[in-house]
C-alpha cells in the first residue's frame, strides 16, 4: 500500500494530496479526502500546534498501520501541521484510495477520529479579548472521545 505520512512545520497544499494519491493509485476506484482548517470567528487570530517529536510521527505511522489492517486500501496519506497558523490555513489532510468507495471513506473518518483525540498534538488559540489577545489551550471535547470510541471492536 502506498503511504505518505508526514508532519509539516510549514504550509502545505492540501489539494495536491488527493490528486497525487489518485495518480499513484490508478487501480483505485474511490479516492476520499478530508481537509481540516483553522476556523475563523470567535475572535481567533491564530492557532499554534505543538507535538513531541520522538513519539508523534511514530504514532501516526501506527495509526496508518491500523487503518490499513481494518480497511482495504491502496493508498493512504496523512499530513498534519505543527507551528503557527491563521484562520483559513490547512491543519490536517487525510486522503485514502481504495478499490470501492466505502473503505476510503471510512478510513479517513477512522484516521480523523484518532488524530483528534489520540495523536500526540496540543493546540492553543490566540483570541482577541478587549484591548489585547490571549492564548487558550484547546481541551478535547467529550464528542471527540466518543467519536473515537465508535471504532472499538
Amino acid at each position: 500500500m502506498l503511504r505518505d505520512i508526514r508532519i509539516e512545520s510549514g504550509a502545505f497544499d492540501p489539494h495536491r494530496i488527493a490528486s497525487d494519491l489518485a495518480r499513484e493509485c490508478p487501480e483505485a476506484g474511490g479516492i476520499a479526502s478530508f481537509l481540516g482548517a483553522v476556523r475563523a470567528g470567535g475572535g481567533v487570530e491564530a492557532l499554534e500546534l505543538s507535538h513531541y517529536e520522538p513519539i508523534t510521527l511514530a504514532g501516526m505511522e501506527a495509526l496508518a498501520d491500523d487503518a490499513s489492517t481494518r480497511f482495504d486500501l491502496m493508498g493512504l496519506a496523512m499530513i498534519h501541521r505543527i507551528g503557527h497558523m491563521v484562520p483559513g490555513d490547512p491543519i490536517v489532510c487525510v486522503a485514502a484510495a481504495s478499490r470501492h468507495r466505502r473503505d476510503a471513506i471510512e478510513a479517513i473518518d477512522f484516521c480523523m477520529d484518532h488524530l483528534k483525540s489520540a495523536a500526540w498534538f496540543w493546540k492553543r488559540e490566540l483570541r482577541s479579548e478587549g484591548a489585547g489577545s490571549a492564548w487558550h489551550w484547546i481541551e478535547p471535547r467529550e464528542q471527540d472521545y466518543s467519536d473515537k470510541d465508535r471504532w472499538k471492536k
Partner: protein
Amino acid sequence: MAVTILFLGPLRDLAGEDSRQADAPLDWAGLLDAAGPLVAEQLKSERVNVACGGKVLSDKHSLNAQDGDEVALLPPVSGG
C-alpha cells in the same frame, strides 16, 4: 548528567517553563516531587501520560528514569 523533565502543552504553563532537570535515577514519587504541586496534581489524572526515553509508559507509576533520560509529561491531546 541528570534526567530532563519536559512539560508538554498546557503543562508548560502550569510549570512555568519548558523543561527542568532532576537528579537521576527518577521514580514516580521523585517525579511528583520534582514537577511541583500544580503539575503533580495533573499527573495523578489517568488522562495524563508519561513517556521515558521516547516511549509512552503503559504504567507511569513504574517510572525508572536513568541518567540522560528525557521524561515527557503528556497531557490530554487535541489534534486535527
